[in-house]
């Protein structure tokens, strides 16, 4: 069966520090991968999605970047965090004809 791992679960980082959130998927090949952000009390904002290794589409210009170094690995990064980067970050995957998004447990990031 397919599983998605996202870590860490919580993270507190100072303004100006770098960020690296990692997401891996098991049990499927060539998935579409996504990063979403949910600000407190708000909806889900699509940040990045990827249909293959090295193929990244950015939805919103911002302080963040994403990379997909391996088929089932998706990384969200920042060189210098801003206070506005605080939020709940969710990784998700979809594949094949199911079209269903499968979400990780999320990372709650607080930038202080």
């Amino acid at each position, binding site marked *: 069966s397919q599983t998605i791992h996202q870590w860490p679960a919580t993270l507190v980082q100072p303004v100006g520090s770098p960020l690296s959130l990692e997401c891996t998927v098991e049990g499927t090949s060539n998935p*579409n991968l*996504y990063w*979403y952000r949910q600000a407190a009390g*708000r*909806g*889900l904002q*699509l940040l990045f*999605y990827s*249909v293959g290794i090295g193929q990244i*589409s950015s*939805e919103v210009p911002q302080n963040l970047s994403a990379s997909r170094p391996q088929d089932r690995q998706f990384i969200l990064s920042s060189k210098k965090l801003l206070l506005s980067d605080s939020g*709940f970050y*969710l990784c*998700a995957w*979809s594949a094949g004809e199911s*079209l*269903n*998004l*499968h*979400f*990780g*447990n*999320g990372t*709650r990031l607080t930038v202080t």
Partner: protein
Amino acid sequence: AQKVTQAQTEISVVEKEDVTLDCVYETRDTTYYLFWYKQPPSGELVFLIRRNSFDEQNEISGRYSWNFQKSTSSFNFTITASQVVDSAVYFCALPYNFNKFYFGSGTKLNVKP
């Protein structure tokens, strides 16, 4: 581009009441899918249902039912005899090009005992 509107920001009901969550969408696609997800307080999103634009039949799953109407571009979700465990944020979603998912802003449902 796709657009999903969930006008109800927050709804509070007492246990055993029925409640309907609204979802209105916009798309230029002739074929599309619509989804509902549940986000309990723990944070993870749980898939509830997927509907194809060709299938307008209402669907029922236990206490949950969905009303899909292309004429009004709506895909509403009804919980019958609500329970405290139904308390969560519910999202409606509409993928673009079958892979980019756009979500509504969500409706927070509070079910009080």
